[in-house]
């Protein structure tokens, strides 16, 4: 399953809930304000690294760029994808769950 999240992890618990519910091996794509969860050196880094050991974590490049977040400032293991990568992830998974 592909999980997407679009809320800031500092304002809502959508990222937390997504990481808790996603089965090992699932794809998790951070979009819109959820891309803030990808920044290294934050209080969330440990939680994200642990999640990344079980899940495939992605962040949407255009949303990172819009917010001024450089790709080299991200937590290791989070892969940046473009809109084409988003489409591929959606097409390859049977089901998409959007955590709002």
């Amino acid at each position, binding site marked *: 399953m592909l999980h997407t999240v679009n809320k800031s992890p500092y304002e809502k618990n959508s990222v937390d809930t997504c990481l808790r519910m996603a089965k090992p091996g699932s794809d998790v794509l951070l979009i819109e304000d959820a891309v803030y969860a990808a*920044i290294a050196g934050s209080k969330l880094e440990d939680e994200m690294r642990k999640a990344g050991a079980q899940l495939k974590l992605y962040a949407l490049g255009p*949303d990172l760029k*819009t917010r001024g977040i450089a790709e080299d400032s991200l937590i290791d293991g989070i892969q940046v994808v473009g809109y084409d990568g988003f489409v591929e992830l959606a097409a390859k998974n049977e089901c998409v769950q959007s955590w709002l």
Partner: protein
Amino acid sequence: MANQTKKFLYINRRAPYGTVYALEGLETVLIGAAFEQDVSMAFMDDGVFQLKDHQDSGETGMKNFSPTYRALGDYEVTKLYVERESLEARGLRPEDLMALTYEDEDDDYKEKPSIHIVSSAELADILEIQDVIFNF
């Protein structure tokens, strides 16, 4: 009513693109600047993301309003307080923020920084001395 200057503080606690709060707040500050009050802005929680440098919204097609913060100095909005604890929790350093400055007309138009990184305790003191506080 006397022409009494009041201390206005605009508190910004939201990230810039996911909701319209940040843009609306900024527009309110610029409109309010016409009333020549003693204006300060505070950035805390996700509001610190508003000041992140290198924002480039071309690929999402959203309006990049971050350059507008550079105009605040021309409207005599020269006190932008950023909570250090909020920055640190989010993996940001002070040098990740835009270098916002203003020209100090009382000091030979010297260019000075508008952004002041303050602790939670210092920001709490700044809140206490205000006459009016707006929240976005």
